[in-house]
């Protein structure tokens, strides 16, 4: 049993939730399912919560008990996927543990909401902007490590355009201050803003600017990333960046506070789509 981790990985979480829905649809109790596998109800519960991994030998008897023998191949694939390492594992030297756990969750997201009070969120950064920020964040890293970090980031951005399954809706609220702050200098910023406008033209990306003259509850938070999944029984999660990493929470009271803050920012009257926002400094730079 691969029960070594205390927290379920994303694939285990999704597989568990899927098993639970199949059991419920079949009208079987937890005890009935457990007896089909000759395991305890506690172990069955841990299977469905993603804390315990389904063994290949358990697939056939479990699906037979649910009258879903035809789904065996699909579940087999999912189990195999849950066991194989993510693409990001080859970036271990630049990948902190909190991010490794989070990336799998991000890859499964159906909705990603972002709030960007001071810097452009990683998922929306242009390579030049990302590089400039990485240099500030990791002043002791040489060019090779910075490039590895950049590759990891670009891989993470590419994962959002997944073709297997529907890609997530990305909904970003960006403070005007973020766009005015010249990370990497004017040329990098112009490129970054063009990058944002390009993303906004794609289906599934919504990027709004909160002008400086507006005020709302999200101003009292730091950067926020909130993810929601398609299976309705999986809780939303918030990723809150700190100077040395991030905190990930799925506590309903915490998530709700950030939901309210994001909604407050989203309902600011004068917010603009990124395509309509024009900065004075940008005009001056052109002139």
């Amino acid at each position, binding site marked *: 049993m691969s029960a070594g981790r205390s927290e379920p990985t994303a694939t285990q979480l999704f597989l568990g939730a899927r098993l639970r829905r199949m059991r419920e649809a079949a009208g079987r109790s937890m005890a009935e399912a457990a007896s089909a596998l000759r395991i305890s109800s506690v172990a069955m519960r841990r299977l469905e919560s993603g804390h315990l991994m389904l063994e290949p030998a358990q697939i056939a008897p479990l699906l037979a008990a649910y009258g879903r023998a035809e789904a065996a191949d699909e579940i087999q694939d999912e189990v195999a996927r849950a066991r194989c390492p993510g693409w990001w594992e080859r970036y271990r030297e630049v990948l902190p543990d909190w991010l490794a756990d989070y990336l799998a969750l991000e890859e499964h997201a159906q909705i990603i909401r972002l709030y960007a009070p001071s810097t452009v969120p990683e998922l929306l950064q242009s390579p030049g902007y990302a590089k400039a920020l990485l240099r500030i964040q990791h002043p002791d890293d040489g060019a090779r490590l910075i490039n590895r970090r950049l590759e990891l980031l670009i891989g993470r951005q590419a994962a959002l355009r997944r073709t297997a399954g529907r890609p997530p809706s990305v909904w970003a609220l960006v403070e005007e201050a973020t766009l005015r702050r010249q990370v990497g200098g004017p040329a990098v910023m112009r490129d970054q803003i063009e990058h944002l406008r390009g993303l906004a033209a794609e289906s599934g990306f*919504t990027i709004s600017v909160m002008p400086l003259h507006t005020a709302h*509850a999200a101003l009292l938070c730091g950067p926020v990333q909130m993810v929601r999944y398609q299976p309705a029984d999986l809780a939303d999660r918030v990723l809150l960046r700190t100077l040395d990493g991030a905190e990930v929470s799925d506590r309903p009271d915490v998530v709700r506070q950030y939901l*309210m803050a994001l*909604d407050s920012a*989203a*309902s600011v009257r004068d917010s603009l789509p990124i395509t309509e926002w024009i900065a004075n400094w940008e005009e001056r730079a052109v002139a």
Partner: protein
Amino acid sequence: MLEEQIDPNKPDPARVYDWFLDGKTSYPADEQAGQFVAGIWPGVKTAARANRAFIHRAVRWLAKDAGIRQFLDIGTGIPTEPNLHQTAQSLAPDARIVYTDNRLIVLRYAEALMTGTPEGRTAYLHADFFDPPSILRSPELREVLDFSQPIALCLNALLHYIADDPERGVTAQDLVAEYVRALPSGSCLVVTHVTSDFDPPTWDRILSGNRAATGQMGQVRTEPEIRRFFDGLELVEPGLVPPQDWRPDGEVPAEATHATVSMWAGVARKP
């Protein structure tokens, strides 16, 4: 009654409804209000699900059997998958949908989270049902909907939030009639509405309680009152019935009894 700012301490009907559907877009005030309603009307979550299932069946029927390609949904609420345009465009990819709501935040959600097919169109309008011209004459709406072709006007679980105001001489029926007048022949009206008809004691308790605390202000109507919304229109089979009884495409869930759901639903065609 266009609302732009959020008051997180006040229950919002759209978020309370999302809570009824076991969604995740509700605040503590909404959950409190939802639990208060569920305490009096234990079937409310079943009713919300029956209402949604009806909308999907009605939209499928409109797109497939009635050949409707244009939908005007008023009082859209928080997006919940599958949304109306997803159901319509899964059968008719070229279907055009305009969503309207009087809460700005609801429209922001819709804009960000509801992406339609490339062949069809979806638009989102911040406008108020109480002000028909603000919707019917809106340039954004006219850009998407062609008023020379049939349109389905969807008023799902909306009209019980609209109380008649005899002093100002405004009734929900007059408002519905004004919208229907603007639609061409062959258009359809879809209505679902809560009623006290099936379970009077429960509804006495709901109506005598503190309704402001529940965020569920409006007017509960009887079958004859709801039937009047369809004046001049031809109700399609099976007529005005509880939503779970309208062309069911499978077994009706056992918990969805007439008393539990306490709603009327109907689809009618404009001759």
